[in-house]
C-alpha cells in the first residue's frame, strides 16, 4: 500500500469507508504468533479463537502514537465497572432487599461483616469515580470530535452505556433505604406519570403498588444486580466498534501510515497502568478519609414515607439533569427536556457539521465548548440549590445554553469559525509536540 494521501485541503478528507480500509492496512507486524510458538495456545485457539483475538488487540492493532492522557478514561471506566461488579457481588451476599431489613442489613455490613465497611465504601465511592471517568471520557469525545464519521455507532453505543449506568446508579442508591433513597425514588418514578393517558398506570406497574414500597425495592435490587452484566456486554460491542474503525487522536487526523501508529502493548498497557494508579489515588483519598463527602447525610436516616426531607437531591452526577428537569414549570415538559438533554447526544454526529474533527484546531469552537463545560458544572450546582428565587431563572438560562450549544452553535460554527492549519499526519503532530520537550 504505497498510495500517498495529501490532506492540505481539509475537503480531501478520506471517506469513512476509506479511513477504515487504511486503518486495517497499517496493522503491525507481530512476527510469529503465540499460536505458532506454544502448543497449548494453538490447541485452545483452534477451539476458541480467543488467543488470536487477544494478540491482535494487544499487538497487531495500530493505535495513534500521539494519544494524550485524555484517552485513559475509557479504560478507567472499564476498571470502575469491574470494581463495582466485584464489590457489588460481595455486598449482595449480605444485603437484604426488604424494606424491614434493608437499612439494618447495610449497617450489618458496615459493622459486623469482616471489612464490610471497606467493601461498602468502595462500592459507594466507586460509583462516583465511575461517573468521573465517564464524564471525562465523554468530554474528550466532545472536544476531539470522536463522534464524527466513521465513529457514529461507537458514539451511540457509548451513550447507551451512559444511560444504562445512570439507571443502574439510580436503582443502587435506593437500596440502602435511607430517606434520600426513598424520596429520590418517589420523585423520579413519579415523573413517568407525566406520560399522557398511560402515565399513572405505568408508574403503578413500576412501583408494584400505589407508592414506592417493598415490591419496588425488591425489583430495583434485581435490576440493579442484572444491569451491570448488560453493561459489560455492551462494553464489548463498544470495543468491537472501536477496533473496527480505530481510535481517534488529539489531532483528529486519521492514521495513514505505519509511522503514525504504535501497538497497544507495551505502550498503552504501561500508560494505562499509570492512569489506574492516579485514579486510585483520587479514589483512595475519598474512600479512606472522606467516604461520605459525595453522599447526603439524610441517607443515614431510615426511610420514612411520612416525613419529607426539606431538600430532595440526587447524587452529584445527576445534578445537571435534575436542574434541567426543575427549570421547566411543567411536569411533562421537564421530563421531556431532561431526557431530551441526553437523547440530543445521539444526534451530535449530524449536528456538528464541521469538516475539522479535532477541537484543538477550532479556536472559535473552543470558546463555546469551555462555556458549555462551565455551564454544565453550573447546572450541577443549581441542581442542588433550592428551586427558588434567582436559581430558577438561572437554571432556565443554563438549560437554554445547553440546548443552544448542540442545536444552534454546533451546526452554524462551520459558517464562520476560524480554523488553524491541520498537521498533515499524526507523525507530524507527534514530532511538533515533542520538539518542545
Amino acid at each position, binding site marked *: 500500500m504505497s498510495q500517498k494521501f495529501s490532506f492540505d485541503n481539509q475537503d480531501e478528507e478520506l471517506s469513512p469507508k476509506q479511513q477504515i480500509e487504511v486503518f486495517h492496512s497499517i496493522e503491525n507486524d507481530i512476527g510469529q504468533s503465540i499460536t505458532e510458538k506454544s502448543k497449548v495456545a494453538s490447541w485452545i485457539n483452534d477451539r476458541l479463537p480467543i488467543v488470536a483475538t487477544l494478540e491482535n488487540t494487544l499487538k497487531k492493532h495500530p493505535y495513534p*502514537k500521539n494519544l494524550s492522557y485524555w484517552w485513559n478514561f475509557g479504560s478507567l471506566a472499564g476498571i470502575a465497572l469491574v470494581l463495582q461488579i466485584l464489590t457489588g457481588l460481595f455486598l449482595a451476599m449480605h444485603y437484604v432487599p426488604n424494606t424491614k431489613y434493608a437499612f439494618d442489613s447495610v449497617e450489618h455490613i*458496615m459493622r459486623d461483616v469482616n471489612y464490610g465497611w471497606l467493601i461498602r465504601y468502595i462500592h459507594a465511592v466507586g460509583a462516583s469515580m465511575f461517573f468521573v471517568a465517564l464524564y471525562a471520557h465523554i468530554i474528550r469525545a466532545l472536544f476531539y470530535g470522536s463522534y464524527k464519521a466513521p465513529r457514529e455507532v461507537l458514539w451511540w453505543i457509548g451513550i447507551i452505556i451512559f444511560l444504562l449506568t445512570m439507571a443502574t446508579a439510580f436503582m443502587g442508591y435506593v437500596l440502602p433505604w435511607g430517606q434520600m433513597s426513598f424520596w429520590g425514588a418517589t420523585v423520579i418514578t413519579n415523573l413517568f406519570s407525566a406520560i399522557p393517558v398511560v402515565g399513572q398506570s405505568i408508574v403503578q406497574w413500576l412501583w408494584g403498588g400505589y407508592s414506592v414500597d417493598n415490591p419496588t425495592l425488591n425489583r430495583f435490587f434485581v435490576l440493579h444486580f442484572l444491569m451491570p452484566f448488560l453493561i459489560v456486554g455492551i462494553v464489548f460491542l463498544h470495543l468491537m466498534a472501536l477496533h473496527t474503525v480505530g481510535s481517534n487522536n488529539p489531532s483528529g487526523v486519521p492514521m495513514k501510515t505505519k509511522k503514525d501508529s504504535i501497538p497497544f502493548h507495551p505502550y498503552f498497557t504501561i500508560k494505562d*497502568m499509570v492512569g489506574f494508579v492516579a485514579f*486510585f*489515588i483520587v479514589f483512595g483519598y475519598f474512600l*479512606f478519609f472522606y467516604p*461520605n463527602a459525595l453522599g447526603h447525610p439524610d441517607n443515614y436516616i431510615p426511610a420514612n414515607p411520612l416525613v419529607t426531607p426539606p431538600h430532595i437531591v440526587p447524587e452529584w452526577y445527576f445534578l445537571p439533569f435534575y436542574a434541567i428537569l426543575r427549570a421547566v414549570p411543567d411536569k411533562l415538559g421537564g421530563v421531556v427536556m431532561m431526557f431530551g438533554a441526553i437523547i440530543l447526544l445521539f444526534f451530535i454526529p449530524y449536528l456538528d457539521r464541521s469538516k475539522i474533527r479535532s477541537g484543538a484546531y477550532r479556536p472559535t469552537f*473552543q470558546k463555546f465548548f469551555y462555556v458549555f463545560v462551565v455551564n454544565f458544572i453550573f447546572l450541577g450546582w443549581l441542581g442542588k440549590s433550592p428551586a427558588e428565587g434567582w436559581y430558577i431563572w438561572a437554571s432556565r438560562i443554563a438549560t437554554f445554553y445547553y440546548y443552544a450549544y448542540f442545536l444552534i452553535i454546533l451546526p452554524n460554527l462551520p459558517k464562520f469559525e476560524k480554523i488553524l492549519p491541520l498537521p498533515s499526519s499524526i507523525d507530524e503532530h507527534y514530532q511538533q509536540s515533542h520538539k518542545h520537550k
Partner: protein
Amino acid sequence: MQKIFLISIFLLNIFFGVIGFNSAKANSSANDNELATSALHPKQMKWEFEGIFGRFDKASIQRGYQVYREVCSACHAMKQMSFRNLGDIGFSENEIKQIASDYLITDGPNDDGEMFERAGLPSDKFASPYANEQAARSANGGAYPPDLSLIIKARHDGANYVYSLLTGYKDAPDGFNLASGKNYNIYFEGRQISMPAPILEDNQVEYKDATFASKEQMIIDVVNFLHYSAEPEMQDRKKMGVRTMIFLFILLIILVMAKRAIWQQVK
C-alpha cells in the same frame, strides 16, 4: 483558549466563595437579630478523630458512653450498637457482661410458646427505651427522639452540629414566639426544638476516672462516643488509608518512570 477555561474556573471559584461567605453570614450580625429563626452555623471544634491521622480518644468515648447511658438512653435508642462493641473502646469482657446483664431483654418464644424476659448478654443490641416509634412519640408529646447510632453521619457537619446543639440552649429572647412544649436552641433550624436541654449542670454524671465532669466535658465526651458509634471502623480505615496512599504514591512514581523509559522508543 485554555485561558478562557481557566478564567471561567477562576470565576466559578469566586462564585462559590461568595456563596460560602453568604452562608457563613448566617453567623453575622444579620442573624443575631433576636427574632431570627434560622439556625446558626455550628461551632467548629477540634476533634481527636479528625484528619487523616484521626484516632479514637478511648477514655473520652468510655466517659461518653456513661453520659449516654445515664442521660440520653432515657429517651434515645441506639439500635445499631451491641454490648460487645464496647470492647473496642476499652471495656473488659467482664465489664461488658456486667453492663449487659443490667438490662432486661425480651426473648422467646420459649417451648411453651411464650415471650419471656432475661438478663442481657454481650451479643444483644443496646436496649431501647421504647418498644416502637409510636410509643416514643406518645411519651414525648408527639416528637420522636431519633436513634443516635448514626446521628453524627446523619447530620451535616455532624460532630460540630451535635456539640453545638447540646450547648446551644438559651433563654428565648423577648418577643420570640416559643410554642408550648418547645425549647429555644440557636443551632436548631427554626430555633424551636422539642428536646429539653439534657446537660444542665456540672457533675450531672459522676465520672469513674479523675476527669472533672463539666458540662462542656460531658458534651465533648458524648459526641466522641456518638462518633464512635456512627463510625466504629474510623481508626482502621484511616490507618489503612495512610499506608495505601503512601504505597500508591510510590507506585505512581515507579510507573511513571517505567512509562517514560518504554516510550523513549517511540520516534
